[in-house]
């Protein structure tokens, strides 16, 4: 069954520091430092792009659903959802929630929000995610009920409601300079690129937050965030370097929280062009990677190795597939079979695109270069432009560094691995694979669906275009007085940046 119920997923599990012992204390102001988007920032939740945007949107707004720590959709403003048998018509029952101005959250707000996102004249990021919904045919039978008509069966439809940026705003809201949301905090003041101050919303549907006030401050430079934290200027610092984490983990001045499994790290091999159109070459590359060395070198040890599959530990992850290990002999043999033999002068040379666009990219490229050299492959590292890297490597080049934030395995497949996926960087286009996906979406039974997902993943593991060597920790720092930070919620999931659950201990 696809019906979710209750808000059981809420509340921090792991907890922070010595947390958990005391009962939450009310009051106080928490300042949280994030990397930001400069003077161009807005509070329009549909324009959410960065972590800072997401955290701010989360404080001010809510979605119908949100991803739990295993990337399964958890109900939020939607109290319940129920598909029809064909899985193409979903009935959503809204929770009893209030806007900050006291009005109730209604079905009309939901339809307005989704229609705003899907507006063809706009370019909101969540638009692609909402594509399966036929918003013309969708309706609001009453204030608390929304019926979504889909264009095709979609068993994992709740993922759409939890999609990045799919926030619910008030009906006909267009100006977000002083936004009215329905999230746990209400707007107080905002200086783009510098700070957002919000205060407790006592009527929040999930119970009022503990903090009186919450301030998001922007500090783009990692060292500025850690220095501000160490200097007592902020109580929470998002996104620290592994090296910084190691330096302060044992010091006791601050708490370091590692959100494991937050970012997939890998390489993209374009399966439609030489030399990677030969699956032997792809497999050889999978075998070249010394994953632990990549984790140690590129991530400074902060992460765990990957098995060329996205979503380790998530719902539907195929953990029955054995972990791939480095095997240079076999890699060389495969390459020779494919006609690349360095001994007779036909050695393989590939260009690896990388860019300082994400931490660890340049390092990973450089490490892989030396690993490949051991298998007789020459890798030429090309450092690209950070701003255009993703767009450049979507169709260009043959071999590039990649990473991905959290999303359900379903989204990973639908966005990146189907013939008509918008960002199919590996150029993986196989009708039979597409069929498997459609089959899964038309399957109501969860175990059956899991089996289909496993078939897809086996195929990808054997001959796909993603060389996924690891999953990076997302590292947070917090003052010792901060309690209630979930320690096991990957970035962008429900319990990540949940400041309504956080409180400040005395002292």
């Amino acid at each position: 069954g696809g019906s979710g119920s209750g808000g059981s997923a809420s509340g921090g599990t792991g907890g922070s520091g010595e947390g958990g012992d005391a009962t939450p204390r009310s009051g106080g102001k928490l300042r949280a430092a994030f990397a930001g988007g400069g003077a161009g920032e807005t509070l329009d939740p549909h324009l959410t792009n960065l972590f800072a945007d997401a955290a701010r949107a989360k404080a001010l707004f809510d979605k119908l659903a949100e991803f739990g720590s295993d990337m399964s959709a958890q109900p939020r403003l939607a109290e319940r959802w129920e598909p029809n048998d064909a899985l193409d018509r979903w009935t959503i029952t809204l929770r009893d929630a209030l806007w900050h101005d006291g009005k109730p959250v209604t079905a009309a707000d939901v339809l307005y929000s989704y229609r705003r996102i899907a507006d063809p004249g706009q370019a909101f990021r969540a638009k692609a995610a909402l594509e399966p919904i036929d918003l013309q045919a969708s309706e609001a039978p009453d204030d608390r009920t929304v019926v979504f008509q889909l264009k095709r069966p979609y068993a994992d439809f709740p993922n759409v409601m939890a999609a990045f940026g799919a926030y619910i705003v008030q009906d006909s809201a267009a100006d977000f300079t002083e936004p009215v949301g329905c999230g746990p905090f209400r707007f107080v003041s905002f200086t783009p690129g510098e700070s957002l101050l919000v205060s407790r919303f006592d009527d929040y549907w999930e119970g009022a937050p503990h903090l009186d006030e919450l301030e998001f401050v922007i500090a783009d430079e990692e060292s500025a965030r850690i220095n501000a934290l160490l200097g007592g200027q902020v109580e929470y610092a998002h996104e620290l370097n592994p090296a910084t984490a190691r330096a302060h983990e044992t010091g006791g001045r601050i708490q370091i929280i590692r959100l494991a499994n937050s970012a997939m790290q890998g390489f993209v091999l374009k399966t439609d062009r030489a030399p990677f159109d030969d699956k032997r070459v792809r497999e050889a590359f999978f075998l070249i990677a010394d994953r632990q060395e990549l984790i140690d070198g590129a991530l400074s040890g902060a992460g765990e190795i990957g098995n060329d599959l996205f979503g380790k530990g998530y719902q539907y992850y195929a953990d029955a597939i054995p972990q791939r290990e480095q095997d240079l002999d076999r890699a060389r043999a495969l390459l020779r079979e494919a006609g690349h033999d360095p001994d007779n002068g036909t050695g393989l040379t590939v260009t690896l695109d990388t860019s300082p666009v994400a931490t660890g990219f340049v390092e990973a490229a450089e490490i892989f270069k030396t690993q490949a050299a051991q298998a007789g492959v020459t890798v030429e590292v090309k450092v690209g432009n950070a701003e255009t890297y993703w767009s450049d490597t979507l169709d260009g080049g043959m071999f590039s560094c990649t990473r991905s934030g959290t999303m359900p395995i379903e989204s990973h497949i639908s966005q990146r691995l189907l013939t008509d996926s918008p960002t199919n960087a590996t150029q993986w286009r196989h009708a039979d694979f597409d069929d498997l996906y459609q089959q899964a979406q038309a399957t109501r039974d969860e175990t059956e669906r899991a089996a289909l997902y496993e078939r897809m993943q086996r195929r990808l593991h054997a001959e796909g275009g993603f060389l996924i060597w690891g999953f990076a920790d997302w590292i947070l720092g917090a003052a010792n007085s901060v309690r209630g930070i979930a320690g096991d919620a990957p970035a962008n999931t429900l319990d990540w940046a949940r400041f309504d659950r956080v409180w400040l201990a005395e002292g």
Partner: protein
Amino acid sequence: MKPRAAARRTGRGQAVLGAALLTVPLLLALAGPWLAGEPGPRGVSFTLGDGHWLGTDFTGRDVWRQVLLGGRSVLLTALAATVLAYLAALPIGLAAALTHRTWLEEALLRPLDVVLAVPSLLLLLMTAALFTPGAAGLALIVAAVNVPDTVRIVRAGATEAAGRPAVEAMRLQGESWWRMAIGYVGRSMLRTLAADAGVRLTGALYLIATAAFLGVGVAPDAADWAVMVDHNRTGLFIQPWAVVVPALLIVALTTGTNLLADAALSARRGGPAAPGRTVTS
């Protein structure tokens, strides 16, 4: 007599200090690549011990090996860039100082001012986007970025000397422009030029590192002291050596060069002989 001798002695002190500072980075830069040997296995990034006596760098490489390898490019590229910048800026600046033709002066200087007004970051990004230069190209770019600045300094320093009667006398002799400009005007501002070139060398070093980070010129994984300083900064607190050692070498290199230049200049003190002063008893 006495003060002269004393000045000479202190000048020698400066030379000794400069030479001492210069020896270590110079030796490492020249002999390093031969001593480096084959790369060992990678370690965890930013760790100490485990056979890496200066620890590992941001990708787990041995810092000592990187230090041995990283001097040559620093020396060559930065020096080449500085020299090139001067080769271009000196004639332009001197021509502007020596000419009487307003249009020529304006034509030489104003376009350069335009370049000055464009943030260098933009210039660098631009070159990063349009070219994929090698080390030589990088030296050229860094030199080019430095030219407008240098021209202005040269001109400012040359203006006074260019108006001296000695220059008039040379003109009256039909003296060649080069001898007038370089041989006399340039010569009389030698100290200023040396001071400027000295700090410019350091600037060039780090500009090259920044460029490397943006993907211009030096490969991002190349061993280069300035690049090391830039890239290993995240590990400053757990593995300071990866930053401190190359930074110290750069400090020693540039400080040593400048001190030696100072000493050389004070040894053959230029200018009209200032009468030495002795105490009238």
